[in-house]
C-alpha cells in the first residue's frame, strides 16, 4: 500500500522566512500528488496538485511544489511566509489505476510568528 512521509511535524518560523515541507511516498508507479491545507477552524482545501507535465507546479497563495520522480518526492515551498500561512499542511498521493483512494501524510503544523 502507498505510504506518505512528512517530516518535522511542527514548524515554527518568522514572517518573511522561507518555508519548505518535505513529502516522500513509497509507490513508484504513476501517481497523482496533492498538497492540502487546513487553516485554523476551517475545512481541508486543495493547495496544489500534480497530475502530469511540468514537475514544478504552482498553487494558491504563492505556494509551489516540485515533483522529483527519482526521489519519490513532492516538496512544498514558499519563499516568504506570512502570518496567515499558519495552518496544517498535508501531502497526499494516489495511484491513478488503483481505487482512487488517497494516502495522506501525518501533516506539518506550521506556525508563523508575526
Amino acid at each position, binding site marked *: 500500500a502507498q505510504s506518505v512521509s*512528512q517530516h518535522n*511535524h511542527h514548524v515554527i518560523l518568522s514572517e518573511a522566512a522561507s518555508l519548505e515541507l518535505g513529502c516522500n511516498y513509497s509507490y513508484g508507479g*504513476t501517481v*497523482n500528488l*496533492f498538497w*492540502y491545507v487546513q487553516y485554523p477552524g*476551517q*475545512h*481541508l*482545501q*486543495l493547495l496544489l*496538485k500534480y*497530475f*502530469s507535465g511540468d514537475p514544478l507546479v504552482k498553487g494558491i497563495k504563492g505556494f509551489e511544489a516540485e515533483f522529483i520522480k527519482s526521489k519519490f518526492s513532492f516538496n512544498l515551498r514558499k519563499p516568504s511566509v506570512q502570518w496567515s500561512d499558519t495552518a496544517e499542511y*498535508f501531502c*497526499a498521493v*494516489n495511484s*491513478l*489505476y488503483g*481505487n*482512487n*483512494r*488517497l494516502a*495522506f*501524510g*501525518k*501533516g506539518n503544523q506550521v506556525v508563523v510568528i508575526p
Partner: protein
Amino acid sequence: DVKVTQSSRYLVKRTGEKVFLECVQDMDHENMFWYRQDPGLGLRLIYFSYDVKMKEKGDIPEGYSVSREKKERFSLILESASTNQTSMYLCASSLWVRDRGLASKNIQYFGAGTRLSVL
C-alpha cells in the same frame, strides 16, 4: 463549486450510544470517503464507497460501519461509541477516474468536519 456537507459540526455522545454521521455531496461524484483526523496522525481512511450500496474498508474500519443508499449520501455509523472514537471526522467525495486523460478530475473535496466527543 463542489459542496460536501456534513450534518453536524459538533456532537457529544455517551459511551455505548449508536452514532450516525451524515454526509451529502452535490456534484454527482461516484466516490465518497470517511476519514478521521487526529493530532500527529494525519488523516486515516475509515471506509470509502465507489458506488451506491458499494463499500470498501479503509485502514481503520474497526468499530465503524457505513451506508450508501443514495449516490449523494454517505453515512458513517458507530454501532457502540467508545471514548477512543473521540475525534474529528471528515467526509470527502471525488469522481471515479480510470482514464489517465481524466486525471485532472480526480480531486477529493472535503466537508467541514464533525468533531465528535464520546464521554
